[in-house]
């Protein structure tokens, strides 16, 4: 067996090191992930909502989410807010002192330290390598501990048998579900449906991007104007930022 010359090994190490230096921090732009490649742990997918651009009576994001994921619309006659799944809600906030009203969309906040994952007894509630928090429904037993643990009321339980689900969002009775930032779209290089709809039909209030990429539009906007996270005091390091709250 021929041993690689020590010098060759050193040379290749030096070359590798040089390459890393040249490439510098990798930019994680949204692009289709090639088949066979896992989610990238160096990415942290996140959202930014500029509530000043979010109209109180606009629900483009909610509509788009429900359509994309095959959920009932709140305007459907048989919609039951206590039982039917909602991945995004518009939450109306009124400051009693000034009367100023906003209605930002609230969805799974994609915590870096998600309590839903902590409490899940089966490992169904999970965080993907790229920090998307989701339910692996194949393991979900429907105990709903995660719904109790979530401070944002982001999760829903499916109470009834369903038919004609969207092929990219399988869902069924007895499982908990929530916003997964449209993993199926992200994996093929498209932004979440809510963000696309907000840009197209809404006020352009929602931005999707990689928090770990210093050059992302999201990070540039945050650096410019700052951002708040809901209940930041809980220390969950959420991935959804709000401006103008």
């Amino acid at each position, binding site marked *: 067996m021929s041993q690689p010359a020590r010098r060759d090994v050193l040379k290749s190490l030096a070359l590798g090191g040089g390459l890393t230096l040249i490439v510098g921090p990798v930019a994680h732009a949204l692009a289709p*992930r090639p088949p066979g490649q896992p989610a990238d742990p160096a990415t942290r997918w996140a959202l930014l909502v500029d509530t000043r651009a979010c109209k109180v009576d606009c629900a483009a994001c909610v509509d788009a989410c429900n359509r994309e994921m095959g959920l009932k619309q709140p305007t459907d006659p048989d919609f039951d807010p206590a039982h039917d799944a909602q991945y995004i809600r518009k939450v109306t906030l009124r400051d009693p002192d000034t009367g100023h009203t906003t209605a930002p969309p609230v969805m799974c906040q994609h915590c870096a330290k998600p309590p839903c994952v902590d409490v899940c007894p089966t490992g169904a509630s999970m965080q993907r390598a790229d920090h998307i928090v989701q339910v692996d429904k194949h393991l979900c037993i429907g105990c709903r501990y995660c719904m109790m643990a979530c401070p944002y009321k982001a999760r829903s339980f499916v109470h009834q048998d369903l*038919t004609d689900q969207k*092929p990219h969002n399988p869902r069924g009775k007895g499982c908990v579900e929530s916003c997964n930032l449209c993993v199926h779209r992200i994996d093929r290089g498209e932004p979440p449906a809510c963000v696309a709809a907000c840009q197209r039909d809404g006020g352009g209030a929602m931005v999707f991007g990689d928090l770990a990429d210093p050059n992302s539009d999201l990070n540039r906007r945050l650096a410019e104007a700052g951002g708040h996270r809901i209940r930041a005091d809980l220390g969950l390091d959420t991935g959804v930022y709000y401006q103008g709250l």
Partner: protein
Amino acid sequence: MSAWPQRRRPALALAALLLALALALPVLATPAAAAELFPQVPAAAPGTECLAPPGEMRRTHMDRLTHRRTEAVRAGIRQPAESLTRCLSCHAVTDTHGQVVTAEDPRHFCRECHDFAAVTVDCFSCHASRPEDAPR
């Protein structure tokens, strides 16, 4: 006693046997009788090839699917060519009205064998059991 001469009896027995066989053969050859012996697996889209030879698919499809789903959901490894949606588009079964059947229908690709072997899978309580663009 008998109207038939004794020496003709073997010939008569042979004729009766041939008659019985002639009557029974078409019955045995009908799909109905064969269906009782083997599940009638619906043919896949013509001109396509499965992920592995049919014999291997029959033995390994459950392990492939379970492996695939763990990789897809937990690691985010997408493999469109091996996805459940792709199985269902190659293996879509059309009924007499030209509509693609769902897993509610015993003619669905994933039901022929399973019903026969008394296997019940819960996949289609969540997963769509026919392609989204299928005629319905």
